[in-house]
C-alpha cells in the first residue's frame, strides 16, 4: 500500500484551474516534497489530501482511505500543519497543546516521546500566549500540536515560510528524526534549496507536476551543459545572451545569469568576452532551481503554443 496515491486529481475554482489532473504515489516512510512557486497549487493539493477540500475530478487515497468517502479515517491518522499559523493566539502554548490533544482524544503523557525533541525547545515558554511567540517557536508549537495524536502521516504546507534560516535548519533536522521513527512526511516548500532534504520531490507549476524524482536525478535532468556568467553589467549580460541565437534557456539566477547554448563552448566564451571583458564564465552543475526554471519555461512555452 502506498501512503498517498493520486489519480487524475483535478481542482477548479471559479475561473482558475488549480490542479490539472495530478498523478503521483508516495511510499510509506518517505519524505516527499512538493516544490513550486506561490500559486502552483500546493495548498489546494494539501487541502484535498487532508479532506478539507473535495476534488472536482479524480481520486486520491491516504493510507488506503479515500479522501472523499473515508474522510473520517483520514482525520484520525493524519497530522496537518497549514501554511498559515493557525493555533489559538490567545491561548497559551500549554493550553493549545492540551486542547488539540483532547480533541483527538490523545494523551499528552503517553505521546510525549513523539514531541519531546521539539516541544522541549518551547517548554520554558509554556505559559506564554501562542500569539506572542517568535516565528520559529510558533512553528515548533504547530508541529507539536500536529504530532500529539500520533499520526501515521504528516502533511506540512510550507512549514518554513517566514522562518529564520537557523530555525529552518533545525526544523528540517527534526523532520529527519521523525522520518526515522517511521512517519511518512509530505511537505511543500517554495524554497528550492530545501528540496535536497527530501527523498523524492515533485516539481509543481501551475497545477501540473513537471517532474518527479529524487533530488539528484532531478538535477541531472538538464540536457547539455549549463553555464553561468557573472559580471558587473548583469542586466546587459542577460539582454545580450538572450539576443544570441546560439543561447537557449537564459535566465537570471541571483547575481548571475544561467544559460545553455548550441555549439562549441570556446567560440561562445570568445563571443561573450568580446562584449564583456570582465565576465566570469564557468560551467556549473544544475541545481533544483535550474531544473525548475528550465522546465517551467518549457511548460509556459507549450501553453502559449496550445493557446495559439
Amino acid at each position, binding site marked *: 500500500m502506498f501512503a498517498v496515491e493520486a489519480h487524475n486529481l483535478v481542482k477548479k475554482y471559479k475561473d482558475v484551474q488549480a490542479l490539472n489532473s495530478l498523478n503521483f504515489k508516495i511510499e510509506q516512510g518517505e519524505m516527499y516534497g512538493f516544490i513550486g512557486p506561490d500559486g502552483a497549487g500546493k495548498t489546494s493539493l494539501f487541502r484535498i489530501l487532508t479532506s478539507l477540500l473535495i476534488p472536482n475530478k479524480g481520486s486520491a487515497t491516504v493510507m488506503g482511505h479515500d479522501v472523499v468517502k473515508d474522510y473520517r479515517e483520514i482525520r484520525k491518522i493524519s497530522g496537518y500543519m497549514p501554511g498559515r499559523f*493557525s493555533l489559538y493566539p490567545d491561548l497559551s502554548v500549554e493550553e493549545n497543546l492540551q486542547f488539540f490533544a483532547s480533541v483527538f*482524544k490523545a494523551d499528552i503523557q503517553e505521546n510525549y516521546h513523539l514531541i519531546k525533541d521539539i516541544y522541549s525547545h518551547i517548554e520554558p515558554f509554556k505559559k506564554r500566549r501562542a500569539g506572542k511567540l517568535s516565528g520559529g517557536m510558533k512553528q515548533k508549537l504547530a508541529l507539536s500540536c500536529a504530532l500529539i495524536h500520533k499520526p501515521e502521516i504528516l502533511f506540512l504546507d510550507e512549514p518554513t515560510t517566514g522562518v529564520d534560516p537557523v530555525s529552518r535548519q533545525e526544523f528540517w533536522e527534526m523532520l529527519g528524526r521523525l522520518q526515522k521513527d517511521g512517519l511518512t512526511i509530505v511537505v511543500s516548500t517554495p524554497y528550492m534549496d530545501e528540496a535536497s532534504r527530501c527523498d523524492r520531490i515533485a516539481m509543481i507549476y501551475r497545477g501540473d507536476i513537471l517532474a518527479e524524482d529524487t533530488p539528484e536525478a532531478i538535477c541531472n535532468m538538464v540536457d547539455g551543459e549549463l553555464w553561468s556568467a557573472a559580471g558587473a553589467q548583469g542586466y546587459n549580460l542577460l539582454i545580450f545572451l538572450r539576443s544570441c541565437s546560439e543561447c537557449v534557456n537564459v535566465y537570471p539566477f541571483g547575481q548571475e545569469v544561467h544559460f545553455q547554448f548550441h555549439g562549441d563552448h570556446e567560440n561562445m566564451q570568445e563571443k561573450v568576452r568580446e562584449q564583456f571583458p570582465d565576465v566570469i564564465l564557468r560551467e556549473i552543475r544544475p541545481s533544483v532551481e535550474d531544473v525548475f526554471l528550465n522546465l517551467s519555461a518549457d511548460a509556459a512555452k507549450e501553453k502559449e503554443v496550445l493557446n495559439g
Partner: protein
Amino acid sequence: MKTILIFIQKEFLQIFRNRAMLPMIFVMPLIQLLILGSAATFELRNIKMEILDQDLSPASRELTARFQHSPFFIVSNNANDIADCEFALDKGWADCYLVLPEGFERDLVNRQGAEIQLVLNSINASAAALINAYSTAIATEYVQSLSDGSGQSIPMIESTYSYYFNPEMNYPSFMVPGILALLITMIGLFLSSMNIVREKEIGTIEQINITPVKKYQFIAGKLIPFWIIAQVELAFGLVIAWLLYRIPMEGSLLLLFSFTAIYLIVVLSMGLLVSTINRTQQQAMFVAWFFMVLFIILSGLFTPVDSMPGWAQKINIINPIKYFIEFIRMVLLKGSGFAETKHLFAIMGAFAGILLPLAMWQYRKRE
C-alpha cells in the same frame, strides 16, 4: 460529550481572556439601562413657548398665567409681533408660539367662541403632537373654569381612567424590560456571529476541521457558552433594573428564563448563520447590524406594533425580537403565566426548530 466540554472550556478561557469582553458583558447593560431607562420618557418637559398677547385683557392674562404655571412650559412674553415670534422659532429660542388675538376676551364673553393660534416647530413630529395635546388640555381646562364660575353649566362628559399593568404610567417599567430583551439579543447575536468568523479569519478553523470532531460537537461547543453568558446577562440586567427602577416582576422568573432559553437558540442560530455566510468579522458585523436594526425598529420597543402599517406588521411575523419583547412585558408587568403565553412558546419553538438545523446544515467542515 467530553469533546463538547473541552470546547466549552476553551471558549470560556478565550472569552474571559479577551479584555473587551467582560466590560462588554457587565458595563454595557448598566449603561444602557441607566441611559435609556431614565433619559427617554413619555413626557415632554421644558417646552419653550412664546406667548404673543394682542388682547391684553384679564382673560388673556389668565390663560397666559395658566401656561406659566404648567410644569411643562417655560413661557416668555418678549415678542411684540408675529415677526418676533417667527424669529424666535427660527432661532430655536422657542419650540412654539401662541397668539392670543385682539378681541379674545370679547369673543369669549359673548360666547361666540374665541380663537387662538398655536404654531409649532414640528421637526420632531411626536414632540409637536405632545405640545399640541398639552396646550389644548390647558385651554380646555380654562374654558371649563369659566363656565363653572358663571354658574351656567355646559353638559360635559367626564371620563375616568385607569392604566392597567403600569398604573403610574411609569416609563422605566415600560422601557426597561424591552431594553433587557435588546441586550441579550445583542450579546447573543454579536458574540456568536463574530466568533466563528474570527476562527475563519485567523485560520484556526482549518485546524479544527481536520480533527475528528463532529459538526454537532463543534457547534454545541461554540453556542453553549454564549447561551450561558446571555442568560447570566439577563439575570444581571434584571437585578440592575430592579435596583435602579424597581421594575415590577409580576410573573414567574422561571417562565421568563425558560422562554429566554428557547429565544437564545433562535438568536444564536441566526448568529451562526451569519458567520457561516461571511468570511470576515467586518462582513459579519454589518450583516448582523442590518438585521439587528431592522428587527429593533419593528420590534415595538419604541413605537407600538399595532400602529405600524400592514406590511410592517407582516414583516414582524418573522421578527423574533418582537415576540420576546411582547413576552417579557407580559410576564414582568402583567404577570402572565404559561397559559397566556403558550402561543409565544410555540412560535419561538418553531423558529428554533427551523433556524438551528438550517444553520447547522449551512456550516460545512469541508468545501
